[in-house]
């Protein structure tokens, strides 16, 4: 009897979750639906042999090159991963993030921040942005840096589902936020 209750509960939860996903994904054309889309197809590129080994990748798609940086979608032994590398060396991977399947892009996670942060102090945890870069859903038009007090210090446009900026002003970072085309905040990542 207890087992049957668990099965019924699991089935009900799955049905409700599926209904929710269907409802959201069928809200076509809405700003909300665009947070689930990643429309840049990119083009296949050959991986550098040592990158294929180190990142356990079997294939790569070059999504875009921006600010001297290359942005890739990888198929790896750890699932689909989003990666960056030097723009002058196609197929050479410098870093990656492999989110759990189905989590990016999404309304709750329209931004994959692969920015590099730094500090030269051993005291406290204040950081500066060394370089801004990452991936964003179709519904994200701009990525902005906020100071811990909430002041916007930098805005970077998103194009082809990526954003990148070298030479970030040396201000302390509080969060990185995703803005839609109307300037409304759709996600904020504390840093």
């Amino acid at each position, binding site marked *: 009897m*207890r*087992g*049957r209750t*668990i*099965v019924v509960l699991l089935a009900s939860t799955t049905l409700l979750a599926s209904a929710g996903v269907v409802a959201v994904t069928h809200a076509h054309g809405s700003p909300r639906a665009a947070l689930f889309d990643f429309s840049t197809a990119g083009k296949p590129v050959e991986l550098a042999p040592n990158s294929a080994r*180190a*990142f*356990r990748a079997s294939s790569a798609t070059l999504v875009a090159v921006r600010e001297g940086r290359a942005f890739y979608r990888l198929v790896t*032994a*750890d*699932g689909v*991963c989003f990666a*960056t*590398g*030097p723009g002058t060396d196609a197929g050479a*991977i*410098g*870093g*990656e*993030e*492999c*989110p*759990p399947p189905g*989590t*990016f892009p*999404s309304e*709750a*996670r329209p931004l994959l*921040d*692969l*920015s*590099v*942060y*730094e*500090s*030269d102090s*051993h005291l406290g*945890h204040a*950081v500066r942005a*060394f*370089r801004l870069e990452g991936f964003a859903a179709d519904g994200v038009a701009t990525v902005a840096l906020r100071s*811990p007090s909430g002041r916007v210090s930098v805005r970077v446009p998103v194009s082809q589902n990526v954003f990148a900026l070298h030479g970030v002003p040396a201000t302390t970072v*509080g*969060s990185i936020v995703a803005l839609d085309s109307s300037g409304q905040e759709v996600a*904020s*990542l*504390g*840093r």
Partner: protein
Amino acid sequence: MRMRLCSIVAALAAAGVVGAIHADGAQAGWCWPSCSGHALLSPGTSTYNGCWYLGGEVCSGWNYWGVNGIDKQCYPRCDLYGYTQALVLYGFENGSTIRGRFTDYAGIFRIRPVDVSMGGYLRAQVNWWPYFDGRLSHTSLLQAASI
């Protein structure tokens, strides 16, 4: 029914461990806490080997590292999108700078020194990190491995 549920849970747990070993551990030169397991990274954690921060950090010894990777688990919990409420910085450090990427999501993450514009003799590092927006940054459950 209970037996079947237990079997599913056991299989998922085993898959997680195997996945972690395969992340980088099989050929790693440095693993934390080991090449076959995960441990909690909290503000009080340390490897006591002279890392950038006295607490909240685990780091390798000095070496010419090629890749630093972490396998961050759903701990203390994950929402549907993998958000863990536990922020970490992972990357590298030298004598003058600590540099890396942040994440508070579960998943596999790898980074090369070149992606943080560093090179030469470095330490691979993973740090517990506080939020600056008032949220509490929880303890992470993760494995780190570098080659």
